[in-house]
């Protein structure tokens, strides 16, 4: 657990006015990392860059927490095929809204990270895929890209080196599933966002069948920090096993919702009470969804001593996800909450896999029944059984993401659910 967080100075989104402008960014050391790498390609060979990033263990901020540099090392040796970096800014998981702040306040940090990644993996084309509802941020981001092109950070023979890369921005049409990495690849190819069966993995067969790496926006924004300061320095931020700065998106019943940057491993209660100003209206905390709607909900009594890092959250019975924390006070109706979550996943299932396509709909419909007071105890057991019918049996993790909240919300708040299943309460009595 991080103790000294109060003295932490933001690194991803420092409080510098107009940092989104390239001149301001450069004045504050921007593009230094990229210059360093391109300027000394002996020291910063492609392999060395990858090794450094791997040693830093930037855990993927898109939700799965995979070591960024390790993922890069899966790319095959260059051949005559094109190679792609697909940057995931789809950000559609309920409770998650942190990449948006990077697009708005520090887009060049991400661009710089993406460029270094492209260099390290000999990539010639970068795609940035942004959530469609973020059209204002797409526009802002495109201005930043244009500036970077003008300054010669993107394009041919960048900074007089032999490295060339292009960057294209594109956006989705409102589907959560296009944030799943292979769903995104299909979408980028202009197809329906149907996630692909793996293997083959994107590094082998990604965009148009060519080697491709997919990283989250925030993940890549960490890369220049690692190059500038070294893996060891990066490892000193946060806690063992989960390092570096994290953008915590805090929403729900707090006084000051928002995106806050602190090290990984922040004490959960400090984030809620100090950073986000405590529970609204002086109410009591009831529950927390720590990392986006798919991560298992934790009761207030499960949060004691828990910190926002993968180990601590796993021990507590949940996951880090995207660090999009949804805070709920004592008035929150867990049945309503769970219905709303099942509604989301029902709405967003792409519909390929039977367990997900039909399971998500069934989950929601049973939740509606319970919510409307027509539930029976057997419905709860049915819901729990359905989570088994869905989990681990589909092409992508959306079915798991839909099943977990059901399983954990019901088991962790069973009384509340049973109380709503009036019918059988009477029948049994």
């Amino acid at each position, binding site marked *: 657990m991080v103790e000294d967080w109060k003295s932490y100075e933001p690194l991803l989104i420092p409080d510098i006015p107009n940092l989104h402008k390239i001149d301001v960014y450069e004045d504050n050391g921007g593009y230094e990392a990229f210059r360093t790498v391109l300027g000394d390609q002996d020291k910063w060979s492609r392999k060395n860059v990858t090794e450094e990033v791997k040693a830093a263990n930037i855990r993927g901020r898109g939700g799965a927490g995979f070591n960024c540099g390790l993922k890069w090392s899966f790319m095959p040796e260059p051949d005559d095929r094109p190679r792609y970096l697909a940057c995931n800014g789809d950000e559609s998981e309920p409770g998650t809204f942190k990449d948006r702040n990077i697009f708005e306040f520090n887009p060049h940090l991400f661009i710089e990270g993406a460029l270094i990644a492209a260099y390290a993996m000999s990539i010639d084309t970068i795609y940035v895929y942004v959530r469609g509802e973020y059209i204002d941020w797409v526009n802002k981001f495109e201005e930043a890209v244009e500036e970077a092109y003008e300054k010669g950070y993107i394009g041919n023979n960048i900074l007089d080196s032999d490295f060339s890369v292009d960057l294209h921005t594109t956006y989705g049409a409102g*589907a959560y*599933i296009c944030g799943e990495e292979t769903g995104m690849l299909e979408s980028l190819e202009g197809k*329906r966002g*149907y996630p692909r*069966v793996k293997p083959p993995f994107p590094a082998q067969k990604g965009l148009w069948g060519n080697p491709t790496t997919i990283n989250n926006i925030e993940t890549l924004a960490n890369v220049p920090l690692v190059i500038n300061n070294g893996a060891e320095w990066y490892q000193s931020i946060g806690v063992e096993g989960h390092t570096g700065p994290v953008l915590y998106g805090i929403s729900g019943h707090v006084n000051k919702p928002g995106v806050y940057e602190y090290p990984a491993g922040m004490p959960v209660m400090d984030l809620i009470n100090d950073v986000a100003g405590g529970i609204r209206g002086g109410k009591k905390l009831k529950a927390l969804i720590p990392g986006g709607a798919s991560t298992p909900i934790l009761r207030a009594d499960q949060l004691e001593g828990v910190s926002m890092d993968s180990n601590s959250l796993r021990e507590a019975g949940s996951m880090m996800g995207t660090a999009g924390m949804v805070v709920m006070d004592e008035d929150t109706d867990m049945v309503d909450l769970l219905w709303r979550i099942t509604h989301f996943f*029902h*709405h*967003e*299932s*792409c*519909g*390929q*896999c*039977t*367990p997900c*396509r*039909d*399971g*998500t*709909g*069934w989950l929601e*419909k*049973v939740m*509606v*029944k319970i919510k409307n007071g027509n539930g029976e105890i057997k419905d709860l057991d*049915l819901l729990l059984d359905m989570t*088994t*019918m869905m989990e*681990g*049996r*589909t*092409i992508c993790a959306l079915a798991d993401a839909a099943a977990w909240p059901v399983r954990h919300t019901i088991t962790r708040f069973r009384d509340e659910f049973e109380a709503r299943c009036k019918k059988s309460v009477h029948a049994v009595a």
Partner: protein
Amino acid sequence: MPEVFIDNERYEFEGDHMALQFILDQGMEVPFFCYHPSMSIPANCRQCMVKAGQYIKDDETGEYELDENGERKIRWFPKMQTSCALKLQDGMVIQTQETSEEAERAQKDTLELLLINHPLDCPICDQAGECPLQIQTYKYGPEGSRFEVKKVHKPKRVELGPRVTLDAERCINCTRCVRFTEEISETNQLTIVSRGDKNYPMTAPNQEFDDPYSMNTVDICPVGALTSTDFRFKARVWEMNQTPSIDITNGKGCNIDLWTRDNQVLRITPRQNKAVNDYWMPDEGRSAYELFNENRASRPSIKLDGSNQSNTSWNNAIETFAETIEAHSGDDVLVIGSPHASVEENYALNKFFNLLGASNARFTPHIIDGYGDGFLITDDQAPNTNGCRLLNLNETDHKDLATAISKAKVCIILSDNLVGRKVVAASDLGNTYTISFATNMTETAKASDLVIPITCVAEHAASYVNIDGRIQRSFPAKETKYTNRRLNLEMSEGRLDRYGTNFDNWVSEEHKVDCLPLWDFLNKLAERLGLDYHVNHSRTILAEISSAIPSFENVTFEKMDEQQGIQLNLDNQKIKQK
């Protein structure tokens, strides 16, 4: 050799194999829907779940590691695997529903989920009886359903195009139809629209599903979502009778099945033959069933005076035929064989008239340049052009044939609509005595002086040589007035054929055509003429051909049946591929 262990049995394998296909190849079963051996593997139905793992091998010794009980150690994969997309590895262990309760449970769960939004309208669904969803539900599905909430509703009776109708509620979203138009017919006319449990296949806005192969999607749709607009609600599959045959509408010779009920062909579907048509056939070939039922030449007819034909008796037809022949010398008789008729018919006819002193039969190929698509639709509009060539019939172009007709006193035409396909005009036939052996009352038959009705491909066993030189044969599917299923061992019997009585629907004499196989008629004619000619059956004709003509050496019905057709020697100059 690499080995795998499936349900505790050891199997060796070589090369790349996916578990599902490998299991099916061993004659075992795992239920599946979306997988199709000729298309990409989307693994989306999740029906083919198996439990899988890997025996652990010691890197150094290469031996399997053993546990304390001396059993091989297994590393199970953390999740169930879809066997369709599971590549076999050396030392892999697979447990299907036969040996793994987990696999059995997963398969049952998937079926329960597939059915929650399915309308369960089997009693009125065309697919019932041949429906993978129905069959696999009975076999692997749950006893009942726990689904007590509302089903999703979707569009019904959507005419996707001229030949295919969609009931989106029945769709299980396996994407076979979409993949067919992407990967096989390459028209890309179908896609899935909408998301999650609301999705269904559809054409692009304002687009029609008029793919020339569209009806193959009806065959591969594992439920009754895609139905043939033409066949819809016409028959229950279990009332029909299925007979293997050959598509005679073009030169490819797609292998097909004729589906009959009460001696009417009700539909045609492709029959798999890797060497010819795989699982597919063009839509055009499917509408040929009408030719077998409608507008048939039934009872001989004769032109008495003027242009009016009227039916006559077989005796009178034979007598008239014989008198005409007797009144002319062999030189006066022009015999026209047909690429639309079988090898046996062309051979028998030619031989018969050779014996009478007529010169070799001619034939005119029926080819439309540019009509073919390089896949299963060919320029050649006839099923047996190469058969005629290999029989050494005299290949004659339109002009020469018209000249020959104008010089002949008697003209014998074997089922070929020369008038309809504009080789000659009806008036060209006016100056000669024209005798047509006809399956259908075509313009040519109607313009003839004497029409001898003969059996069509649906009524006889006969062979055809396709554009690639492959000889394949038909089986009798329909009875004629003179045949009986119970006596003809080549004919299959459906439930109604076997047990139906005249009190049943779909049992009648109505659809039996009054026609004879060409060779039967020639026997009768030979007897009347006192000619030394007799053949029993197309089988004996083929035996004769096979000993007389080298290209047909060793060709028999039995061999064709065993090998799904026989590739004839292509070195022969006469074979043309078009």
